[in-house]
């Protein structure tokens, strides 16, 4: 404000002075007034002006500088906090004082601030002793500054008090252990209060934790291990808690283990127990180990003692205690050892005594145990007593035994004994007794045998029965102490009945009342012979017999009568008498001797008889010799006759050969004839057909003419036309007959077999012939006899044709009387050679009986021939072609029957048609070559109506038309057969054989012709002989097989050659069938050919249809693999080969195990073998086993083919070496997948 005023004044002054641009000055002053210090006064024109301008500018500049300084200063203090003095340079006056005032203000303001900063920074550094001074440089603080200072000081004081309290509590709790201390800070609030509370909480927590730990530890110290630290802690304290608790657990475990061991070892006596404390270490481990050591030491010691005691108990007294023990246990060990010693001594003594007395037999030994007392003493005494008793008894037994050994069997043991020894004594005594008896028996037997032998030897070689009997008696009587004896021999001489005659005696005196002979049953001797039993008499009466000596005589007390037997026949009787009774031994001896004597007597007998026979035979031999000579002569004569016979035979053979060759010639001629006949028939068939066609046109036109539709013909012309027609009709009939006959003869007639009801017979015949009969005034009877079947299997058309023909003939040739038709069953009447009828189970006969002119016997055969009538002249009278009966005969033959004729001229004729009640063989296929019938069809189209031949004899044309109109049946069907056979007879034979089956047979004589013929035309079957001249049958087969066109023709081999198995198999591949020439071959040949001709449709399913389930060959995984098929079943070989070859496999086949092995030896490239189990000679099991042994085959797969499904059969295959097995009949798909699994890897 002052400045402005100054500036205003300056400006006024300037204006006051002249020369001063006042406008400018005013503008500048206004700017300064506005506070704009940037304007300057320009230097004026005058000097004053210039001075005024300079001063003004200087004022403006000073203002500007002041303003700038104050701005800087305020920024420096206020914004940057730098308290510095403001300085404006050379200022003076008001300017300077203004500046000073500003500087003072700044000074005053910054002083208290500095003080506060000092105190706060001391507090921050932890020094709570500083306070703010309440006066600065002697000036007390006032106002706001004072309040601030006091607040700061209060804060510092409270901080101080709080720190003191916390420090105290911390020291008390932490350092001095005085738990429970609490900080007491009064007058604090807010955060300080919270802080204090936290400190107190911490102190409390710590206190409770430490106290809990202390409690547990104290409990542990006092042995209570059940306590645990339960207080809730965290962090490091938690670890501490866990450590302490773990420690307590381990202590617990340790204590338990030690307690257990102590109880087991100490109390329960279970030695060997060991403490087992898991997871302890340090001292605890040591402690545990110590306990264990103690326990094991104790265990060892106790066990040692136990072992010794046990040994002693078991009788082993050598055991000593060798314990490393001390103290009481050592004493115990010593005691036990000394006890053992005593026992050992005792035992040894007792053993010695026992051994001496018992084992070594030194009786009398006594035990001596020094120092034994008490029980031991008693025991020893007992042993000694036992020894003494035993000694006495054994010595007694020994004495007796010694006596027995020396043969004295009278001794017995008498010593006192009890129990077992008593038994022994008794047994020995008994034994001695038995021994005595046996010895006596043996002695007797010895005596017996010795004497028997002596007798036998003595009697050997004796020839005379008298000598023998004498010898026997003189030896025998003394031996058995008999004083008297007689010998009666059995005699049957000279017609007398067998009787006994005295032959020898011993000390015998003949007496009157004693006979020289006895018959059987007479007296004792006879009775003995009758009964064949020994008789012994004791206490013989006194007057019975006396034994004499020179000095006197006495009566014997005993008599024995002995029969001498051989094979149950009595040969002799011996009687002996003795004073003493005969001992049992003697009786035995006598019995046995009697047998020997029997044999001897028989031998003597036989010898004498042999001698007799020898003499006889010698005389016979002489006789025989003479007879032989006679025989020889007869033989020679016979041989001569045989030679004659042989010569005659040769002659006959020669004749036979001649006959045969002429027969062959005849047959050849016959064949030629047959051929000619067939050519004729064929020609006629063709010819008549060719004739019929124009004739038909002729007939139609003639009929047209006769009808005279235009009415322009003269009656004469009409008559001509009628004659042309009727003649033409006759001609047609003739041609039809010829055609019929030729067709039948050439074998091209087809039969249409059906079951024809015989009930149709009567109406049919009535219809056809009743009016004829009426017209000719003949009686006509139809007689269907009982027993006829309801239907017959035949071709009805043909049958009707036959019957019509016969009946119309009958009417034709009968002028008066009757015509009769009879149908009945027949049991005979046909020619005996007709096999067809012979074989048929039933035969029906159709008879046509007339009372006509009859046929002379000599013509009866020829009327059946073509163009024949009984009388050449009759043809004119009766008309007819003479073919009817031929046709009838052929048709009947075709139907399997025959026609018979009985006739007598002037009386009448009987034609009988016999037909078998079985269907004739029915051909099926249409003939490829026969074109006649198709033309016949044409004919019927041209002339649908008019050509029907009406009336009478022949309806074949109608029948033929009917069947051809049916179309499907076709008319004649035939097969073609090629016979390749060099023997013309055979060839013809086959041709004949097949003729009834409508087969056209062409025969060729060699292979070249056959091949040529086969190339020329197609055959349904080829019959081939193997033995052909030139090219053999085998070659023909090979040729056929190489040609696709020819190979398909079915082939039948017909040969007289015996084929080997190999040949058979080889042929079997090419031929449908093989027939060996033999008696029954024709039958089989016919069947086989028929089977082939009738085609594969009827062929059996035996071979199976192998193709059906095979996989497609193109993608076969088996291609190129080589298989071996071993099977004796050819069916199977073929089927398998075909099937595997379709898989493009190579197949080799053999039909026996042996061949398979040979083949495998040579071929190593077989990939798989299929082996049949059931084969002759070497069966499949053996074959497979042997295949496995072959190195060349090794472990390649073998598949067994078995028809068996039984358990074990299959296992057997595998055991034998099969890799797999498959059941027969083989399922192709199954086999293929099996092969793939083995071959495709």
């Amino acid at each position, binding site marked *: 404000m002052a400045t402005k005023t100054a500036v205003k004044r300056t400006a006024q002054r300037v204006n006051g002075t002249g020369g001063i641009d006042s406008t400018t000055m005013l503008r500048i002053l206004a700017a300064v007034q506005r506070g704009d210090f940037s304007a300057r006064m320009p230097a004026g024109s005058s000097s004053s002006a210039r001075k005024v301008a300079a001063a003004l500018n200087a004022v403006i500049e000073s203002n500007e500088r002041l303003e700038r300084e104050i701005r800087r200063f305020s920024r420096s203090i206020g914004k940057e906090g730098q308290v510095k003095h403001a300085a404006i340079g050379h200022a003076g006056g008001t300017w300077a004082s203004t500046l000073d005032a500003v500087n003072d203000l700044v000074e005053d303001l910054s002083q208290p601030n500095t003080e506060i900063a000092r105190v706060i920074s001391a507090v921050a550094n932890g020094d709570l002793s500083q306070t703010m001074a309440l006066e600065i440089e002697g000036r007390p603080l006032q106002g706001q500054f004072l309040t601030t200072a006091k607040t700061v000081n209060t804060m510092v004081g409270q901080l101080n008090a709080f720190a003191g309290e916390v420090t105290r509590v911390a020291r008390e709790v932490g350092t001095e252990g005085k738990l429970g201390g609490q900080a007491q800070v009064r007058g604090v609030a807010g955060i300080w209060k919270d802080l204090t509370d936290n400190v107190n909480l911490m102190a409390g927590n710590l206190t409770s934790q430490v106290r809990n730990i202390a409690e547990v530890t104290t409990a542990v110290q006092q042995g209570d291990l059940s306590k645990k630290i339960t207080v809730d802690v965290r962090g490091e304290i938690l670890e501490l808690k866990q450590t302490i608790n773990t420690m307590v657990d381990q202590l617990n475990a340790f204590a338990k283990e030690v307690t257990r061991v102590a109880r087991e070892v100490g109390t329960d006596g279970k030695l060997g127990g060991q403490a087992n404390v898991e997871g302890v270490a340090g001292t605890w481990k040591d402690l545990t180990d110590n306990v264990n050591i103690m326990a094991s030491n104790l265990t060892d010691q106790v066990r040692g003692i136990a072992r010794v005691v046990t040994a002693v108990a078991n009788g082993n007294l050598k055991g000593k205690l060798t314990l490393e023990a001390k103290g009481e246990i050592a004493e115990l060990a010593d005691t036990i050892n000394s006890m053992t010693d005593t026992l050992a001594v005792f035992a040894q003594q007792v053993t010695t005594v026992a051994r001496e007395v018992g084992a070594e037999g030194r009786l009398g030994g006594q035990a001596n145990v020094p120092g034994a007392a008490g029980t031991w003493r008693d025991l020893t005494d007992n042993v000694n007593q036992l020894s003494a008793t035993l000694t006495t008894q054994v010595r007694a037994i020994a004495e007796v035994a010694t006596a027995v050994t020396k043969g004295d069997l009278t001794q017995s043991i008498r010593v006192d004994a009890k129990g077992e020894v008593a038994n022994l004594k008794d047994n020995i005594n008994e034994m001695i007794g038995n021994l005595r008896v046996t010895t006596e028996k043996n002695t007797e037997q010895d005596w017996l045998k010795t004497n028997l032998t002596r007798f036998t030897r003595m009697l050997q070689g004796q020839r005379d029965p008298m000598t023998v009997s004498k010898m026997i008696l003189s030896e025998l009587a003394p031996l058995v102490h008999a004083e008297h004896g007689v010998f009666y021999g059995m005699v049957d001489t000279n017609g007398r009945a067998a009787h006994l005659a005295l032959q020898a005696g011993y000390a015998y005196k003949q007496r009157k009342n004693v006979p020289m002979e006895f018959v059987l049953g007479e007296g004792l001797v006879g009775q003995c012979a009758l009964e064949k039993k020994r008789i012994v008499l004791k206490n013989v009466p006194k007057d019975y017999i006396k034994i004499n000596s020179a000095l006197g005589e006495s009566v014997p007390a005993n008599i024995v009568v002995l029969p001498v037997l051989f094979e149950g026949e009595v040969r002799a009787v011996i009687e002996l008498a003795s004073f003493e009774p005969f001992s049992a031994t003697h009786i035995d001896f006598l019995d046995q001797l009697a047998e020997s004597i029997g044999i001897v007597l028989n031998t003597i007998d036989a010898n004498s008889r042999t001698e007799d026979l020898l003499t006889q035979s010698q005389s016979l031999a002489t006789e025989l010799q003479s007879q032989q000579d006679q025989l020889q002569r007869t033989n020679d004569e016979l041989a001569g006759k045989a030679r004659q016979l042989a010569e005659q035979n040769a002659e006959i053979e020669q004749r036979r050969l001649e006959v045969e060759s002429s027969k062959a010639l005849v047959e050849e001629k016959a064949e030629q004839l047959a051929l000619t006949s067939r050519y004729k028939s064929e020609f006629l068939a063709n010819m008549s057909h060719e004739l019929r066609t124009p004739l038909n046109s002729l007939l139609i036109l003639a009929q047209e003419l006769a009808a005279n539709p235009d009415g322009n013909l003269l009656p004469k012309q009409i008559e001509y036309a009628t004659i042309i027609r009727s003649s033409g009709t006759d001609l047609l009939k003739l041609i039809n007959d010829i055609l019929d006959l030729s067709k039948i003869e050439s074998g091209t007639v087809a039969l249409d077999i059906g079951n024809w009801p015989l009930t149709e017979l009567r109406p049919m015949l009535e219809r056809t012939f009743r009016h004829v009969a009426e017209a000719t005034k003949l009686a006509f009877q139809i007689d269907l006899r009982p027993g006829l079947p309801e239907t017959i299997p035949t071709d009805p058309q043909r049958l009707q044709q036959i019957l019509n023909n016969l009946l119309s003939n009958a009417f034709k040739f009968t002028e008066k009387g009757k015509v009769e038709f009879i149908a009945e069953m027949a049991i005979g009447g046909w020619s005996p050679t007709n096999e067809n009828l012979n074989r048929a189970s039933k035969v029906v006969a159709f008879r046509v009986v007339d009372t006509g002119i009859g046929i002379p016997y000599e013509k009866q055969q020829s009327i059946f021939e073509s163009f024949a009538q009984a009388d050449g002249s009759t043809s004119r009278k009766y008309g007819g072609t003479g073919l009817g009966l031929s046709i009838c005969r052929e048709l009947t033959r075709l139907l399997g029957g025959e026609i018979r004729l009985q006739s007598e001229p002037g009386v009448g004729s009987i034609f009988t048609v016999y037909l078998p009640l079985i269907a004739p063989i029915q051909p099926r296929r249409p003939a490829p070559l026969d074109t006649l019938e198709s033309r016949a069809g044409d004919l019927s189209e041209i002339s649908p109506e008019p050509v029907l031949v009406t009336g009478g004899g022949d309806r074949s044309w109608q029948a033929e038309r009917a069947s051809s109109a049916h179309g499907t049946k076709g008319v004649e069907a035939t097969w073609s057969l090629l016979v390749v056979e060099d023997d013309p007879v055979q060839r013809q034979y086959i041709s004949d054989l097949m003729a009834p089956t409508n087969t056209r047979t062409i025969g060729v004589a060699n292979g070249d012709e056959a091949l040529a013929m086969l190339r020329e035309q197609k055959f349904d079957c080829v019959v081939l002989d193997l033995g052909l001249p030139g090219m053999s049958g085998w070659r023909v087969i090979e040729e056929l097989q190489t040609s696709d066109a020819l190979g398909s023709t079915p082939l039948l081999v017909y040969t007289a050659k*015996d*084929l080997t*198995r190999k*040949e*058979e198999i080889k*042929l079997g591949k090419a031929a449908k069938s*093989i*027939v*060996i*020439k*033999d*008696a*029954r*071959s024709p*039958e*089989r040949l016919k*069947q*086989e050919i*028929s*089977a082939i001709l*009738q085609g594969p449709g*009827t062929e*059996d*399913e*035996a071979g199976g249809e192998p193709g059906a389930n095979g996989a497609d060959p193109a993608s076969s995984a088996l291609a190129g693999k080589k298989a071996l098929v071993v099977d*004796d*079943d*050819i*069916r*199977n070989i073929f089927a398998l080969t075909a099937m595997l070859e379709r898989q493009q496999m190579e197949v080799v086949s053999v039909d026996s195990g042996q061949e398979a092995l040979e083949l495998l030896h040579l071929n190593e490239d077989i990939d798989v073998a299929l082996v*049949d189990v*059931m*084969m*002759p*000679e070497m*069966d499949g099991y053996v074959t497979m086993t042997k295949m496995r042994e072959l190195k060349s085959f090794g472990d390649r797969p073998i598949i067994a083919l078995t*028809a*068996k*499904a*039984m*358990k*074990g*059969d299959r296992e057997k295959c595998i055991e034998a070496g099969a890799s797999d097995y498959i*059941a*027969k*009949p083989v399922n192709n798909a199954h086999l293929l997948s099996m092969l793939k699994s083995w071959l495709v890897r």
Partner: protein
Amino acid sequence: MRRSEGAALRIERARTDLEEIEIQLLLEGIRLCYGYDFREYALSPLRRGLTAAMAHEGVQTVSAYQDRILHDAACMQRFLGTVGFNVTGMFRDPELMRCVREEVVPLLRTYPSSRVWVAGCATGEEVYALAVLLDEAGVLNKTSIYATDMNDDTLTVARVGSYPLDRVRRYEDAYAASGGQANLADHYSIAGRTARFNRKLHGSITWARHSLVTDGSFNDFHLILCANVLIYFRASLQERAHRLMYDSLIRGGFLALGKRESLLHCPDRDHYEQVRDGVNLFRKMRW
């Protein structure tokens, strides 16, 4: 009186019913355990055989017998032996053999080689009879005889070909009646009390185990002789056996059956033709 009879009958029937169940179980067990299938065998001959076999073993019930038979293979062998399908002899049907001699052999001659199957040959007597016949006809050397039976034991007997002499001697009459051309004794040698058939006959025979009940066809034959086997079979089983044999015959082959047997259960009987009245020889006429 009548009531008690009725009760007895009921009890008897119940016993029979029970036994039938037992027999069924036994046969099923035998099939599972040993593979022999008797289930379709005719019941009454089977029951007779079973009764005999049980008496032999000394067991009272079929169940007890089953226990033994399943645990003891030897017992099973004895069962096969005593159940009695092994009764056979030589030329048992002389008429049949004569017919074979007169009708079959001439046709066998027309084949390069032929095969004959004796199905169910038991102890083999009829096989040797057939071999004797073929030998006398001169065709044995080109004929293979296959003789099969399901029982290994009887096959073993058959293979040896030795029979008690007195028994073989008794066949001489039947042999003559069958058209024998010499003596049967020409075909065997005597050792002690047994007759052993000649080596030549042995050489032509292949022996094998085969069951008509379970197994299949293993070759085709010109003649099959199956005598007194089918009588033990029920209808369904006869049908199976017939089909098997029909399939194993060549066209025109012959089937010979026992006297009491027929083609009644043969599905293909229309294709057979009886060769001679009163003789069970048939020819397969399917051509």
